[in-house]
């Protein structure tokens, strides 16, 4: 307890105990802690300019094929459902002296790459936090840009996703979205609803608390109409009424948040009960294959006990 060191580092300097791996015992890792003064990212992008309106990176999503996983990963331990909080677009743009819009466009490219990797590595559901309910208070210019970016991205990717076997679902309060975007979302969901290789759930105008409240309202209506009794209300019923009822695997196995922030920011609250959390230091546009491998590798080393004993 008594120490003569007065310069207190802000990072958690307590080192993990060294565990000698035994057969069958997995090594656990802790959350990464943010540094006080994070350094600029190591990537050196030569093309420091605003992206064009063409959002496609390298053609279609490849058709189903057997892809070799990186050495660190095991196919058997791959999570079924990965959720991502795509944080850091604005900071990424500011670090490069670009407009915020450039950060968001770079973010779309990073998302496209992640979708491809998920398809190749057998992940069944990918949920991304694109726009939160609280983001509506951002400057109108930025919000309008984001809405138009969503429209452009959906229009440009729908065919590619269809061919790649990707099903798109959008969750969140769609009543606040522009009418044209609402219509486009309905069309895209309808067009891709039979695809089964990967389900991409995009959370737009979404709030975890409001998801539970709308489930509650829906249940109250059913109780009022006599369809259910109060005693029938259980966890399973709430799960069925949440917006993530669009998928067979509504509970993420792994949540990744980029940019080093250590919070869930009102995303999928009910669904995150047993989700493994991984906080990446990189800003979202810099979160690429290597960083995704790190996150998956960390997940695969964890022991999930669900309150019981192993």
């Amino acid at each position: 307890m008594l120490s003569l060191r007065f310069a207190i580092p802000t990072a958690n300097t307590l080192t993990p105990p060294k565990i000698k791996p035994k057969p069958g015992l997995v090594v656990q890792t802790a959350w990464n802690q943010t540094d006080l003064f994070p350094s600029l990212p190591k990537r050196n992008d030569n093309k420091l300019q605003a992206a064009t309106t063409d959002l496609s990176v390298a053609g279609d999503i490849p058709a189903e094929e057997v892809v070799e996983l990186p050495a660190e990963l095991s196919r058997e331990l791959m999570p079924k459902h990965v959720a991502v909080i795509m944080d850091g677009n604005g900071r990424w743009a500011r670090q490069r002296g670009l407009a915020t819009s450039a950060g968001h466009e770079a973010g779309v490219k990073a998302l496209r790459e992640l979708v491809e990797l998920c398809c190749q590595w057998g992940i069944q559901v990918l949920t991304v936090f694109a726009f939160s309910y609280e983001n509506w208070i951002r400057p109108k210019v930025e919000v309008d840009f984001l809405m138009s970016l969503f429209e452009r991205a959906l229009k440009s990717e729908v065919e590619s996703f269809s061919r790649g076997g990707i099903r798109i679902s959008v969750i969140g309060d769609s009543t606040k979205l522009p009418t044209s975007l609402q219509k486009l979302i309905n069309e895209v969901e309808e067009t891709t609803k039979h695809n089964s290789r990967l389900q991409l759930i995009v959370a737009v105008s979404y709030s975890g608390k409001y998801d539970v409240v709308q489930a509650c309202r829906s249940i109250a209506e059913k109780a009022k109409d006599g369809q259910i009794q109060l005693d029938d209300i259980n966890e399973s019923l709430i799960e069925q009424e949440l917006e993530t009822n669009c998928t067979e695997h509504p509970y993420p196995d792994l949540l990744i948040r980029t940019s080093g922030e250590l919070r869930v920011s009102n995303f999928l609250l009910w669904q995150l009960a047993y989700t493994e959390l991984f906080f990446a230091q990189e800003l979202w546009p810099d979160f690429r294959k290597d960083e995704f491998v790190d996150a998956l590798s960390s997940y695969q080393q964890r022991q999930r006990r669900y309150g019981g004993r192993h």
Partner: protein
Amino acid sequence: MEKEVMSSLKMAGNILCSASSFIRKCIFGVLRVGPIPNHIAFIMDGNRRYAKKQKLSHDGAAGGGGRYDAGFWALMVMLLYCQELGVKYITAYAFSIDNFKRKPEEVESLMTSMLEKFHLLDILVKLLAVRVHYAGNLELLSNELRASAMELTEATAAYSKSVLTICIAYTSRDEILHAVRESCEQKRIDLEFGNDDDDEIKLMKVEKNMYMAVAPDPDIIIRTGGENRLSNFLLWQSCWSHLHSMWVLWPEIGVWNLVFAILNFQRNKTYCLDMKKKEKEL
């Protein structure tokens, strides 16, 4: 000669304790320059691993809650430090509904240990003027344990210096389920008596029915033991909380761990406060 040595050792010990206490007070004084969290929640993970390390009594032995004694005292120490710092609300995840899945003898041993600790807690919280609240589905507990919990809650209701919430027979989903049921029941009653002034159930009504409605949302959630998940703890209340995981096992947690967690929180506080305000505006 021996007496002199003992006396010298005792004096040295007192000096060290005083110096340590002085340094701690200085550090806390520095921390108080920045924002101090109003509410810290602890996921007390690592008791079993600690017991294995220390070769403490097995769960199956008579009075075998020995492995959780160190965890109890760690909580008391954290409570003291938090009081000294000015953290008003402390919440601890003592026993999850999921923990009932463990072996029956382990669960029984845990319940016995908890009952013993409640009696001890009764004395300590009255000395420290701490209000105690139990959050969880208390109907799942034995009559004796539930009665002891209710008694302590009533006995400390008048205290206001700090509030200690012990989550027992608790999971966040069960809490939300309970709140949803209560909200639907209240809606039904309002409709029946024509008091329904609102078409829809609002977020605030659901929140009022949470077990954790006695405390504001936690500013920091600290998890010991190195795991990186919430384990069905305060899912609703944690949406803007700063999440801090540490490798140290729960019984080994010390003042420096708390200091690091608060320093990290202070770097992010402005953002969290802003978002909480904005959530209310929407």
